[in-house]
């Protein structure tokens, strides 16, 4: 390994881990290394969660022409600490007729499942906990098990709102999971691997100063858009936050949760967002690779976490902009627009793969996607056209 300052900064966490581990006997070292990595992941992401909650509350406030929290500490920066302390000291209420065991396990299942996803995400050069050959599959398998937690929470609460929220949640997540997987299959088709480190490696090269990220190809751009839409639905974020739509369902599946269990759901939701944003980064935005070749002097983990936070800002921006969808709109959008688009994208990727180098494939692939997008959009929008409201008796 080279010992330039840049390389040292790049590998600082790996070196730190190796230094910490070398105090232990050799037989213990692998296990201790893994435990250290797990501790780091479990420590870093709740920290980022606090930062992004603050960002969200302040940012959303600004978007809605108000200040957001500004009382706790200078400019309200200690608000997440106050929130955390508050949720720790609150009474933990379990409904009288609830299924107490399942009610208790549900938030744990959620948090464990979302944290498991990080095991395979490469967060920097050599910074991956388990370099699994089928990392992509593992990630989505873990992501899918959050549905279980949501249904456990909704079912065990014995509350109509919880159950409705949970049913909506499961329906929505299963629908969008198809689109999520389909849009990432495009990347797998090009890379020929399910290993996330290989996918990042394939994007970590430059033409001149510009990177070879998949988002800069026609199919990658379309795939990234579809992936983002599906990711937002998968993490129950606005405008797809029907499972917890507070205007009609109180708080959806976690209506009956209070205190620390509620905080765990909240944490799980945000860490899930980090996970899916990390996945989008890995698949389409070049993972930990620098956006311009001369920016490689900054460490790889810096780029990964920057992209993660930018994705979070995007999530917040979209939440501040779009109103919530209706259930039928949500389903129609998933099955009649996103899924067909991802299928077209798969065909597009195949064409891209077999047309070989040259400008022709850029034109052909872009035209195909654009035609599909415009055509499908036309059809969708025509169907959704609503005439003037007519009254039966009041005229």
């Amino acid at each position, binding site marked *: 390994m080279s010992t330039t300052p840049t390389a040292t900064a790049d590998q600082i966490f790996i070196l730190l881990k190796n230094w910490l581990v070398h105090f232990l006997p050799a037989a213990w070292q692998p296990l201790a290394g893994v435990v250290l990595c797990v501790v780091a992941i479990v420590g870093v992401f709740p920290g980022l969660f606090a930062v992004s909650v603050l960002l969200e509350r302040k940012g959303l406030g*600004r978007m809605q*022409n*108000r200040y957001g929290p500004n009382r706790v500490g200078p400019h309200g920066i200690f608000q997440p600490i106050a929130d955390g302390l508050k949720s720790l000291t609150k009474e933990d209420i379990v409904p009288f007729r609830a299924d107490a065991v399942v009610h208790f396990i549900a938030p744990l299942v959620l948090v464990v499942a979302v944290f498991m996803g990080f095991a395979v995400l490469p967060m920097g050069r050599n910074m991956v906990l388990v370099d699994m050959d089928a990392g992509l599959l593992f990630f989505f398998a873990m992501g899918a098990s959050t549905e279980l937690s949501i249904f456990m929470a909704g079912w065990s609460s014995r509350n109509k709102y919880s159950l409705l929220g949970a049913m909506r949640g499961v329906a929505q997540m299963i629908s969008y999971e198809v689109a999520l997987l389909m849009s990432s299959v495009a990347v797998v088709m090009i890379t020929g691997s399910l290993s996330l480190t290989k996918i990042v490696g394939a994007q970590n090269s430059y033409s001149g100063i510009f990177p070879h990220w998949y988002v800069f190809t026609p199919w990658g751009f379309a795939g990234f858009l579809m992936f983002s839409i599906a990711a937002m639905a998968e993490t129950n974020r606005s405008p797809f936050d029907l499972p917890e739509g507070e205007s009609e369902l109180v708080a959806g599946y976690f209506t009956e949760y209070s205190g620390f269990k509620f905080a765990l759901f909240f944490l799980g939701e945000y860490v899930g967002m980090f996970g899916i944003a990390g996945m989008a980064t890995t698949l389409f935005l070049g993972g930990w690779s620098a956006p311009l070749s001369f920016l490689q002097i900054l460490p790889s983990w810096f780029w990964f976490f920057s992209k993660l936070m930018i994705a979070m800002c995007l999530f917040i921006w979209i939440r501040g*902009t*779009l109103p919530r969808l209706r259930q039928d709109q949500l389903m129609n959008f998933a099955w009649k627009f996103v899924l067909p688009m991802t299928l077209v994208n798969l065909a597009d990727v195949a064409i891209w793969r077999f047309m070989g180098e040259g400008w022709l494939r850029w034109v052909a692939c872009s035209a195909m996607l654009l035609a599909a997008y415009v055509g499908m*959009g036309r059809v969708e929008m025509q169907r959704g056209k609503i005439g003037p409201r007519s009254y039966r008796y009041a005229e």
Partner: protein
Amino acid sequence: MLGEGILKGLGETARNFAGSFVSAERLTTVQYPEERIAPIEATRDFPFLVYDSKDPADSEEWLKGMRCVACQICEKECPPKCIYIEKSKDKKPDALGKPQAYPVRFDIDISVCMSCQICVEVCPFEAIKMDTEFELSTTDRFGGLMHDRRQLAKSNEYYHRIHPTEAAEVDARLAEEKAKADAKAAADKAKAAAAAAAKPAVPAAGASAVATPAPATTEKPEASA
């Protein structure tokens, strides 16, 4: 095209977000405990009892000048029944100088009061009016929110301060009534004097009581003022 509206919306929120750092018009929030905006004149929340301040040095002036005669009309009209009145056995001179009963107990439970202003509208003596004081939080949710007559009694000057237009109208009306009552009393006295000692004077109380009740409908504060 599909997605156009989303981009427009994103542009709008981005403009709001960036604009909030440079233009004060985009941040309309008033930071309440530190900054406050003056209440508009028609503001009202809970009722208070008006007293006419005659001798500010007197610590009992609030009771002496209290316009309320404990007629209990407001207590009966109050829709949520949050007014509790006990009438006095003795009498004291009211705003027109006539001896009248006064409330020995006048409590309003502001946790029940719904600020409907019906008590104000029915009061024939201009004795109960709407206040603008809203910082009434207390650590005692039963006793602390039950305001007694001392807490409710506020001077006519205070009334002028919070609702100038309305208070001026009320004062004009009261002065007119007082003039009328005085004229009547003078006329009665003259008549009594003229009728000589043969017949005793007609008690003035019965005659003036007819004139006293103010028309309730004209009392409504003009919100547009």
